């Protein structure tokens, strides 16, 4: 039985700056089901990180939710996260939805030991029994394959980048959240450490029934870890489907371009593809499909109207007028 745990309804997020309003997320509808892994992919500036941070309302001070709802279903109730007060947010964060950030190196306060930061987190959520927290922390650190006794008494700078990312992942599991958001969890790490973190995340996925949202530009990570993939472009979801649909039967020219742009060791540089042009200006958006200027399939309709997501297969949605012509010849 698949039950939805998070329902993002018609979400708009904007940043205001001197030039105007940056429309970073535009009308996103997205459901997250219990126990599933959802990957949000797209290039830099596509709004994927904004969407991720908007879920726990941790947008930078210039950012705000313009419209829409973020409904969290847990403990037999429904909560609209976008209506939470600061106090409710504080209790909600990490307890229900935890987030692992890209910057493993800077995620920890440099002047506090790992233990103090773990205990800080527990205490913030009303758990102040030191022995209980310590036992839990030690078992989690062991679970992420670290030497608990050593790590727990270390300062962050005494740990490597990969170790810090493991500590943060262990800490994210501390309060047994229902949802874990991982924003580029492997980007700052070297290739072997990336491998280890991916293995760890697979173990977590197998062991624990939590739902995960991966935010990444790395398609291989999405292919390995995700059940479903949402492809974002210019603040909107342009394609959404199972991992097989997205990688084997992509229906949006942007998805297709992303897949073709992934270098493989065997192919060499011979056929390395890149999508021409650059992402649109999110302040002055042109009418029509936002991808049209870079799209080789575009026609006059594409430049006039913006396509909506339509179902093209079971649970496979795409926002493209010409999806019928795409992907068949791959």
């Amino acid at each position, binding site marked *: 039985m698949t039950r939805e745990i998070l329902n993002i309804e018609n979400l708009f997020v904007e940043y205001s700056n001197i030039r105007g309003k940056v429309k970073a997320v535009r009308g996103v509808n997205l459901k997250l089901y219990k126990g599933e892994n959802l990957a949000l992919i797209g290039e830099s500036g596509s709004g994927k990180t904004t969407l991720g941070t908007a879920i*726990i309302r*941790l947008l930078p001070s210039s950012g705000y939710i313009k419209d829409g709802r973020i409904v969290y279903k847990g403990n037999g109730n429904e909560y609209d996260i976008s209506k939470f007060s*600061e106090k409710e*947010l*504080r*209790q*909600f*964060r*990490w*307890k229900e939805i*935890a*987030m692992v*950030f890209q*910057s493993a190196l*800077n*995620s*920890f*306060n*440099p*002047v*506090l*030991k790992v233990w103090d930061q773990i205990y*800080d*987190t527990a205490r*913030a*959520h009303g758990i102040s029994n030191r022995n209980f927290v310590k036992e839990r922390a030690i078992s989690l650190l062991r679970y992420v394959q670290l030497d608990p006794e050593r790590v727990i008494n270390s*300062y962050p*700078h005494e740990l490597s980048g990969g170790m810090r990312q493991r500590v*943060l992942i262990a*800490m994210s599991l501390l309060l047994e959240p229902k949802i874990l958001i991982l924003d580029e969890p492997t980007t700052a790490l070297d290739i072997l450490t990336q491998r280890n973190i991916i293995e760890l995340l697979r173990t977590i996925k197998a062991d624990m029934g939590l739902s995960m949202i991966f935010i990444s530009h790395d398609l291989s990570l999405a292919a390995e870890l995700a059940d479903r993939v949402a492809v974002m472009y210019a603040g909107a979801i342009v394609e959404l489907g199972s991992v097989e649909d997205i990688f084997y039967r992509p229906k949006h020219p942007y998805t297709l371009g992303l897949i073709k742009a992934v270098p493989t060791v065997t192919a060499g540089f011979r056929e390395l593809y890149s999508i021409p042009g650059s992402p649109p200006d999110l302040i002055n958006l042109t009418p029509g499909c936002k991808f049209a200027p870079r799209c080789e399939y575009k026609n006059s309709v594409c430049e006039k109207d913006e396509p909506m997501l339509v179902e093209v297969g079971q649970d496979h949605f795409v926002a493209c007028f010409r999806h019928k012509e795409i992907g068949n010849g791959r």
Partner: protein
Amino acid sequence: MSRVKKILSNYIFLRAVRAILTVFIVATLTFFIIRLMPGNPIEIYIGQLMSQYGMSFQDAKNQAAALFSIDLNAPLSKQYVIYMRNLLRGDFGVSFLSQGTPVALMISAYLPWTIFSVGISILISFTLGITLGMLAAYKRGSIFDHIMSTIAAILSAIPNYLIGILLLIIIGVQLGLIPVSAMRGTVSPGIKPGFTWIFIKDIFSRALLPIMTYVVSTIGGWTLSMKSSTLNTLGEDYVTVAKARGLPESRITFAYVGRNALLPLFTSLTMQMGFLMGGSALIESIFVYKGIGWALGASIAQRDYPVMQAVFLIITIAVIVANFIADLLYSKLDPRIKIGGE
């Protein structure tokens, strides 16, 4: 062997060697530089003896030499060797001005007042400055921030002796809030030192204007540095992560933002100590507050070489000691800094 090596590479040992070297260099430089200054106290004194008592030049010179316990015919290099030899024994010599008074005794009478007034000022100024700076950073772009930052920039641009004179004129003369002329010196006559309310009240009221001057002239700098340091820290990822972890705002403000924002200011704190001690010469002279700065001012006016040398040396030692303490404390505050790289 390895033990000797260990001591030689020991951080504190190296610091001590460097400190001694610095003191030696400063002692040497001050010795020669102040002797290059125009005017010679002994000649003035000899002239006085000759004109007042009708002594012959030779008699006056002999008497002066006996009084000043300095061989005036000795070449500079020999005087220097004697001075250094005495210094090694901890003998600062005898004041020219207050004849027969050992300089060490004068220093011990003046120095505590400067440490007291400068120390209290730094404490007040630092505490207030970092609080205001942090508030300004948290309320960035607000009216409070604009007003605070403007005032802070103006205050930090005005030299402290000017602020001292302004305070003297406004508070002392125009408003007449403080009887300035009665407030000369460090302690009222007849009040016995001790932990009594009368004594503490008295020394604070007499140090009030110098303390105000130091505070007003340094608070702007602290506010601005803390504001920019806090703004930098607020942008750090670990602050965002702390929010994501649901930590209470107070915990984030103090243990995550405050503590990290303070670190870079810590080095300047000790520099300030030395800076203010050196700068106290002007302020203490303005308010006739008899601390080491006032003694320096007075001794320069009279070319009282031994006192000048001693005061310069004391200020140097104060800066060295303050820096050393700062380094030790810094390594306690920031775990990333390990002393001696063990």
